[in-house]
């Protein structure tokens, strides 16, 4: 069957053509993507595969760079650069900062 992300040709609203300003975190996520590509740890296809693995609900609700964060995180874990446990610890630390 058709994958959720493969939406070409489905009824949809108008494309939002307004230029958006990027938040600092979005620029950092983009830079992380560039670094991982340069180090040959990530291809655009791997990133897409990870994004396409999101549930349809998550795919629709998450912002563009939020999808990227998940894809980069999954890739780092799969590559053995981060463990889930390390990521969990760090996320709790960041949460405590408030």
């Amino acid at each position, binding site marked *: 069957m058709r994958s959720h992300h*493969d939406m070409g040709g489905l009824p949809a609203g108008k494309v939002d053509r307004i230029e958006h300003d990027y938040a600092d975190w979005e620029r950092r996520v983009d830079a992380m993507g560039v670094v991982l590509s340069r180090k040959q740890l990530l291809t655009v*296809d*791997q990133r897409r*595969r990870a994004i396409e693995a999101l549930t349809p609900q998550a795919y629709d609700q998450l912002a563009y760079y939020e999808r990227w964060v998940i894809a980069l995180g999954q890739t780092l874990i799969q590559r053995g650069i981060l463990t889930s446990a390390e990521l969990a610890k760090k996320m709790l630390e960041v949460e405590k900062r408030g």
Partner: protein
Amino acid sequence: MAEPRFQPGEQVRVINALPLGHVRTPFYIRGKTGTIERYCGSFPNPEELAQMRDGLPAQPLYRVKFRQQEVWPDYDGSPNDVLEVEIYQHWLEKA
């Protein structure tokens, strides 16, 4: 590199496959018949790159031209309108 099998002007059909994994052939074009517009070069297979393999041998990529009316049955524009999609050779068969 895999050998290019199609020439510009040849009629081809996109295979109507629904594999798993990451693929670059949009759903809406599968099963449609078009014409090879040009050979774009050969590139590591994105379906393999997506799974952290090297994607070699490189696969021929073509720009394929479809009549809009072939792609969208209810298309009400000119019958001369076309849509071009870049498709890897392993998704194409002779029509």
